[in-house]
Each structure stands twice: as C-alpha cells, then as structure tokens.
C-alpha cells in the first residue's frame, strides 16, 4: 500500500526560497509540506557566509516589510554587520551581515518546526502529478507530487524551489561528482517529469571558493575588516539595542602576479576553459580564472577571508572561486600573502544544475501553462540567497492567494526591488544567473532600504503576514513623519543675530530673508541634528522618523523628479493587453516582434515594451491597434 496524503501546498526544496514559501503558506493557514533531500540542510548557505550587501540588503528589508523570515533570522545569527556605501546617498546604503552559517540554518529550522500547519518531510520529489484542466485543452493543472519512495501527496498548489540540486554536477578540475552543493544528494528525477509537462529547462553554472583551516592563516599579513560601531538590524521588528554585540572580523589580502601565472599556466585544466562545463556562469561573481583572463591588465585582485561561524575554524576565501584541480588550487592559494601555509578544508568547485528560463512564468511566479505550479529561487535562473528568498515569499504568497481565491501579489518596478527582480526575470532574456544590482532599479531613490516598511508593510498586512500591532505602529510612524515635515516647512526663522551667528559658525551663508527650517536642513553643510539650537519647538522623535524626514527634505528635488517619472511609467503599465488578443491581426508588426509577443503574452504594454525584439515602433503599432480594438468592442 502506498502512502497517500492530502494537503494544500507542496514546497519542493528547503533552501532560502523554500523556507519563505513554506512559512508564507502555513502562516496563511494552508496545510503545507516542505520537501528536502536532507533535513540537515534546511536554509543551508553553501556559498558565501553573509546576507545582504549592495541591493541585496534592500531585498531583505523588503522581504521583512512583507512578513518574510530572512531578516529576523539573520538578526538572530549574525556575527558581524556593516552598512555599506554610507559615504554615498541614502538610496545606495545597504546592509550586509556575516552569518554564523550553522546557527543560521539551525535557527531557521527551529522556526519551520514551530510553525503551525507546516510539515517537514525528507524525501526526493521525482514527479509532478497533473491533469488537463479542461478537456481537449492544452492547459494543465497540478494535482499532487510523488516521492522517490512512491508516496503521493495530493495538493492544489506546488512551489518549485529546487535551487542548484536538479541534475547537479560538481567540478573540481578533472574530478567530477554528480552531487548537489556540499556533497549533498542531487535530485535526478524531477527534470524528466517537468519536461514531460512541456516545461523547458536549461543549464546554469555557478561556483564557490575554497574554505581554509583558520589556524593555518597568517592574519598579520592581512588588513583587518571590522563591523560597524552601531549595528543596524535587518528586520523592522528587531530592537536595535537588543543586537549590539561583540563582532567577528574579516580580513583583506590580495592576489599577485605569481597567483596569476599559476592560473594562466593551468587554464587547460580548468573545466570551463577546457569546455567540459556547458552551463552559463554569472559574470558578476567570476571565478578567479575568469578575472585573470578577462582583466589581464589588473596586477592584483582583492581577497576577503570571512569566518564561516563562531564554532568553526573554517574561513571562506571571498574573491577566489575556482574550478581548477585541487593541486592547482592549493598552489595558487598559497601565493597569497597570509595563505603561504594554508590548508584547505573544502576545495573550491563549480556546480552545474538544471533551471528554467523564467519567461515561462507570470509575474505572480505561476507557470503560464500549468495552473497551480509556482517556481522560485535559483530554479528561476537567479543567484543569491536573498534573490531566492524574496521569490520564495512571493511564490508562496501567490500559491496561497490562488487557493484562497484572492488577487495575486504583483509588484511593479516602481514599488520595490522585488518587483524589479521578478519583472527582469519573467520579461528579459537572461543568459546567466541573475543577481540584483542597484543599477537595475530605475527608481532607486524611492526604493530605499530605509523606507521598505513604509512602501510595503501595508501590502504585507493586507496579505495577512504582518500583524495588526505592526501595522498600527507603522501608521503612527507615517503620521509623525508627515507632521514633522509639515512643521519644518512652515516654521520660519528670521535673520536675527543668533541665527546669523549660528550660520557663520557652521560656514553657511547668512540669511537675507526669513527661511523655513526645511530650507536650512536642505543646505549640504547643515542637518536636522545640527539646526536643533534654532528649532525651539522641536520634540524628541524616534530615530527612524528623523531619518525619513531628513532624507525627504534633503533630496526633495530629486525625489520629486523620480516620482514624476514613476507616473509616466505607470501609464504604460496600466495599459493592459486583453488576454484574447490575436497578434496575427495586428497589422505592421515585425515578424520578430509578433513571434515574441505571441510566445510571451505580456500582460501590459509596459511589459511588452521591455521584451527584447520588440522595438519602439512595434509598441506604437500595438498602441494604435489597442485603441482600435477598444473602440470596436
């Protein structure tokens, strides 16, 4: 007798995407099972030991504002924290925390285990069960999953979060193993099942550097990298005072010509340069081989030694991922100052895996052709823990919304980095694992990490992942920001002696006529804090309120301009394309554009305009046609 169970949602994979998806579904009251090939690898960090960083920090903040878990979990388990880019504008400030990897994983597992409606199951899912949703129709609908041992879980929605496990293959020079990351069991059956459903798969590649035995590293030859003095938490729910603590250090060193010579001499033994790897790798985290070949003019590259945790000696060698053979790796690492006598605990390796072109998905992350099937994370062609987590959250939410008969959560490019990430994934031609970058966001001045709660927590509340208390606290924050802004704009100071003296003291030009406090804050040499002596009626406000007030005032001109651009953008996003449009009836479309539009079925003219192969001329043609279409109905 086979085991047969009935649940609402099955989550396949328990990495950063899977965990968020599972928690979202269970928290919204749906019976959820999360499958993993190994319970010990829940929320595993198989590559870099940190969370956040430029633009990725934004993602975590946004996830937190919507009710995800990653921010809270890293606040519990970080060992060093740093706000990056503090010398630059507020839009590009980004938080990054070094994690104690095993603590991070254990802590997340605890959260999953404590979650009502959620079951953890160690099993390899090898088949998606489905039926045609209507007779004689192409459209499919999922009915459940089947595990390798034959157990069947009937369900109404599935979220695929298979990460790098599908048909995974690890390469370290000539040595090839058919395993997932860290020697974990690969998932070898699901690909066929997906192909049978008509889903197209492709192969991507990524890599990770070696881990060193910390006792063999000479830190005296490296520069110590400290965390921030005042630690800022990721989660809006974490009390900053509760997380100030002793921090671990990272270390900076450099490669040199010797390192590069060894690499060049052994390129023929690199699986990538020897042509053994077929998958496409990411350019933003190139292997050290790639850096040496593509940027041959650079005499040295930075290397960061980062602790893997507090309870291990292992150190991550950031900047030197590689798929060269073991002996070459050792020789090359040992040319780096401080690593002359290093011993490698785990070798660097490249990993290849099956994933999809996410253009097969709606922005809700549901497959266009298969109802009830959602996908998130590296399986969608992204890269990075944070990118995975936010997709997991959105896919989980939308699986739940579908089962609950509610509207899906679709954010556009002007609302969040998450919106930018998903739009890029499902709209553009990505030929390599996709990483978030602040430059991908057109409206980044509005999408700051400091205002993620103001932008998104109302949505989180509507969805049901943000508590009433948190929502109400947010409303209070909003009101006090508005009130303070108003007060500063309408409180004027005249050019009296006290004021002029104050301005002289701060090397600021003296007043000719009365000026509002806001105008004074606007001056580069002054700030909210500094003008306190002139502001007689000021009452003490929370730090986060002051931060918003100051940013909104200081950068008002730019913020207003960007807000106007958003209005323009929204116009095109709001021009929806009817789902029954027949592109063959649209005259004058170029063939390439016609094919792309047919294949892709964009939901709006805005989305259509971002498809590669659709020119501005095609968009004008389409707009004209849609006008006709409307008036002829």
């Amino acid at each position: 007798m086979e085991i047969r169970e009935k649940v609402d949602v099955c989550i396949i994979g328990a990495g950063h995407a899977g965990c968020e998806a599972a928690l979202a579904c269970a928290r919204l009251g749906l019976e959820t099972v999360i499958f993993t090939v190994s319970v010990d690898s829940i929320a595993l960090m198989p590559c870099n030991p940190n969370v956040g960083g430029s633009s990725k920090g934004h993602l975590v903040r946004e996830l937190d504002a919507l009710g995800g878990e990653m921010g809270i979990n890293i606040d519990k388990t970080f060992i060093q924290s740093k706000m990056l880019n503090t010398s630059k504008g507020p839009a590009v400030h980004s938080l990054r925390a070094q994690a104690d990897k095993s603590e991070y994983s254990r802590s997340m597992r605890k959260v999953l285990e404590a979650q009502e409606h959620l079951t953890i199951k160690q099993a390899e899912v090898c088949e998606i069960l489905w039926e045609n949703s209507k007779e004689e129709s192409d459209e499919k609908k999922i009915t459940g999953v089947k595990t390798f041992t034959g157990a069947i879980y009937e369900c109404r929605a599935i979220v695929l979060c298979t990460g790098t496990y599908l048909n995974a293959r690890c390469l370290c020079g000539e040595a090839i193993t058919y395993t997932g990351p860290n020697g974990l069991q690969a998932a070898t059956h699901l690909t066929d099942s997906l192909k049978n459903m008509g889903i197209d798969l492709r192969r991507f590649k990524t890599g990770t550097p070696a881990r060193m035995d910390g006792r063999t590293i000479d830190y005296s030859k490296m520069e110590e990298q400290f965390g921030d003095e005042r630690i800022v938490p990721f989660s809006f729910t974490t009390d900053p005072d509760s997380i100030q603590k002793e921090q671990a250090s990272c270390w900076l060193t450099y490669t040199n010509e010797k390192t590069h010579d060894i690499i060049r001499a052994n390129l023929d033994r690199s699986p990538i340069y020897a042509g053994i790897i077929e998958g496409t790798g990411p350019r933003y985290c190139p292997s050290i081989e790639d850096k040496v070949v593509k940027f041959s003019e650079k005499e040295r590259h930075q290397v960061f030694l980062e602790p893997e945790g507090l309870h291990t000696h292992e150190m991550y060698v950031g900047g030197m991922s590689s798929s060269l053979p073991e002996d070459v790796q050792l020789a090359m690492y040992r040319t780096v100052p401080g690593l002359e006598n290093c011993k490698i605990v785990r070798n660097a390796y490249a990993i290849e895996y099956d994933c999809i072109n996410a253009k097969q998905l709606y922005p809700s992350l549901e497959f266009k052709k298969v109802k009830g099937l959602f996908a998130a994370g590296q399986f969608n062609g992204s890269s990075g823990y944070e990118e995975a987590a936010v997709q997991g959250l959105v896919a989980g939410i939308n699986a739940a919304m579908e089962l609950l008969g509610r509207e899906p959560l679709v954010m556009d490019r002007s609302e969040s980095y998450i919106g930018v990430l998903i739009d890029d994934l499902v709209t553009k031609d990505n030929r390599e694992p996709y990483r978030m970058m602040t430059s991908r966001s057109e409206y980044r001045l509005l999408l700051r990490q400091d205002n993620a709660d103001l932008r998104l927590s109302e949505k989180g509340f509507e969805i049901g992942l943000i508590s009433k208390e948190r929502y109400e606290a947010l409303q209070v924050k909003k009101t006090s920001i508005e009130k303070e802004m108003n007060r500063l704009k309408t409180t004027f100071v005249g050019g009296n002696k006290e004021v002029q003296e104050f301005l002289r003291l701060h090397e600021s030009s003296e007043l000719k006529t009365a000026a509002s406090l806001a105008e004074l804050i606007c001056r580069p040499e002054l700030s909210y804090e500094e003008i306190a002596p002139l502001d007689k009626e000021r009452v003490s406000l929370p730090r986060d309120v002051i931060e918003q007030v100051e940013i909104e005032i200081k950068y008002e001109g730019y913020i207003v301009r960007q807000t106007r651009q958003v209005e323009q953008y929204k116009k095109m996003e709001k021009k929806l394309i009817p789902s029954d449009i027949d592109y063959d009836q649209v005259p004058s479309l170029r063939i390439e554009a016609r094919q792309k539009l047919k294949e892709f079925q964009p939901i709006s003219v805005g989305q259509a305009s971002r498809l590669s192969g659709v020119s501005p001329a095609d968009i004008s043609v389409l707009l004209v046609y849609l006008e006709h279409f409307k008036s002829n109905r």
Partner: protein
Amino acid sequence: MERKDTIVAIATALTDSGIGIIRLSGEESVSIVNRIFLTKSGKRILSTVKSHTIHYGFLVDYNYISEINEDNFKNYLIDEVMVSVMKAPKSYTMEDTVEINCHGGVLVMKKVLEAVLNAGARMAEPGEFTKRAFLNGRIDLSQAEAVIDVIHSQNELALKSSVNQLKGDLAKKIRELREAVLYEIAFIESALDDPEHISLEGYPNRLSEKIIFLKKDIKQLLESAENGRIIKEGISTVIVGKPNAGKSSLLNYILGEDRAIVTDIAGTTRDILQENIRLGDISLNMIDTAGIRDTQDPVEKIGVEKAKKYVEDADLLLYVVDSSVPLDQNDFDILKILQNKKSIVLMNKSDLNQVVEEKMIMDYLKDSVSDISILHTSTTNKEGLDAFEKTVHQMFFRGDIKQDNQMMIINIRHKEALQVAYDSLSLVERTIQDDMPEDFYSIDLMSAYTSLGTIIGEEVEDDLVEEIFSKFCMGK
C-alpha cells in the same frame, strides 16, 4: 481593421525630365500593374516574374481594359516603360514594391499615375512610403526623419546633409557620445555595487573634466542644428535702410542673371516683399522692407512695426547705406538695431562721391556684440557680389561648409533631444558642485544617455549591466 492597401506615388520630381518613376507598395502592387502592363508581344507576365527583376513593355489605358487584347493593345498605349518588381521583405518598405520607369514629362507621368490608380491603387499620403518602411522596421526613426527631410530639402547642401545623416554619420556621432556617457554611469554603478573593490576617490573631478568635453561636442551638434535649419529653410535675411538708399536696385542686382526665385509672396502689409534667392549653394529668404524710419502716417507705421518684427526674427540684416549722402538720425536708429544681429553693411553707390566713410560706421558699431561686416557695392559697376557671397558663407558656415564633413542636425526633435542631453549634463555638474553623493550623478547622466538614444531610436535596455560587466571586474 486597417486594410493593408496598396499605395502609389510619383517618386521623381514632377518636372519635365528624362525619366519619371512611379512607385507602388503593398500586397497588390504586382497584380495591379499586371493589369495594365504588357510585353511587346502583348502578354501579361508580371505575376509570374521573379523578385528583383526588371521588364520592358508597354503601359495601357485601364479605361479600355476589357477591350484590350494581344493584337490591338498598341492602340491604347500610354507609354513605353521598364517595370521592376521587388517582393517583400527585400524592398524599401519591406512590402511588395513595383517601380514603373516611364518617360519623364508631367503629362506622361500623370497619365501613368492615373492608370495605376484606376487599376486599384490608392494615392499615397506624403511620406507614407517612409512611414511604412519605419513601421515595418526597415529603418529607424532618425533615418525615417532624414528621408522626410530629403523630400523637403530645398537645395543641394541640405540634400547632402540629409544623405549623410541616412548613411549614419549622425548616428555614429551620437553613439560615440552615448558610449562615453554610459562608461561613466557603469563606472559609478560598479563602485556602488561593489564598494570594497572599486573606489570613487577623486572621481568627481575626473567626471567634471569629461563632462566639459561631452558638452562641447553636443554644443557643436546643436550649432550645426542651427546651420541645418538655415541650410534647409534658407537664411532669413532682412534688407533695411532709408528709402532711396538703393535697396531695390541692390535686390534686383543680386537676383540678377542667376536669379532663382522660388517664391514670390507679397506681404500682407504694404511694402513687404519676400523672395527666396539662391546664391551659390546657399539660399536666402530676402525680405525687403519699406525702410525703417520715424513716421506719423498710420498706414506706414504698421509697415514699420511689421518690419521691426522681421528684423527681430532675422538671421541676417542687410543694411544698405547710400554712401553719397550724410548719415542722419534714421541711420543711427538702424545702427542701434544692428548691434545685436549678424549684419552686413553695404556701402552702396560706391561709384559716386563718397560722403560716408567706413570708419564712421565702424566707430559707431565698435561696442556691438555680433558679427558685422562692411562691404562696398555698386549696382552700376557690378561690384561686390562675390565678396557678398563669401561674407555670407563666412558668417554662417565659417566659410568651410563645402569641405567640412560635419553632420548636420536638421530636425527639431533631434535638436530638442540634444538640448535635453546638454541640460542633463549641466545638472550633473551642478550635482558635483553641490557636493551631492556620487549615486546622484547617474540620475542625470542616465537622462542624458536616454535622451541621446531617442535621436537614433535606441532604448536603454540592458546596456548598462552589459557595460558594467564588460568594463569592470566585479567582486566575489
């Protein structure tokens, strides 16, 4: 639903010339011409011929088509023609295209056109071939606009510049500018993305210097836009001077033997006359005014007001001085106007006794801010026309218009886009001066980049990310 009908137009100038071309585009081009085109043996072959072939034969009158056969067709001839067939998508419009080469001559061409219209084509709207080529993706926006400018250009120089633009000189220059801007954005962005690897130390100064160069280049293109307008529309030139200074005779003289009057529009108010004249390869829109002087006559007053308005809008003022009589208050009033305008002072009647000397005028104009030349002319002795032509060249094209291969911006939309790019770069300079953080630079650099892109119809797409990865070594 818009029907993809077949359009026709006369593609060559409708003048008496050697050959005329009638062009059709659209699905039915071939079948329409097939109805009225017969080989010398009277066969209809066009629907079976291969693409990109040319055929000799005869065009017949569609009105008698039911009576026409192999034996009698020669009685219904319109013209002896060559017909070429270009099938989609390898044609200018990317649609089926047929070109009928007939004998030039207004009457013949009109008859051929009529026959084609009778046989089922529709008269094309102005620029419709280009529009179709554009909509079908055959040419980009700037090419399309250049084609329209070709149609409208009034003389050889403008034509030359339109042709250059088509060939992509302009597109190439714009692309170079865009690349330079993109490089800077990519550098800033890679530093923001990877602050531990890429430093912005000292960058604001470096960027400021680059912006100066970029702005200079754009300024040059903008100036060429002014030249472009002048070439295309002609130099708007106003003749001023007291009555009887010899304005009319001078005008007649310039118009002289080589006169090439294009338009002859009488002004709505009395005494204002506009003539389009061609001088070598530049054209002047000459406006002759009644003369600017203080007057009580209400009718003349209107004329003077109108003249002043023309003077204000003019590219060039021609001030005709009768050098045989002394200057008076009216002359001084005119000289005042001259100070802010490109002007040429023509010391007329140089064959007579010289009362007014060049120096007197120079002294008066020594504080003026604009380009002013003084020439001596005599309509009786036929002096000074060459010098006049040279001076105009010098003033408007720095004399080098013919040799200089610089691309001309000849379109308002281009000019606006360039101006936006220029202003955006100025905003970046401002941002640097205000000590704003570096991430703010990319906001206006990006608008400059986007704006330049609209000139050549290119979108931003993923250029930036590509540039970051290809030019800068990123971390991890």
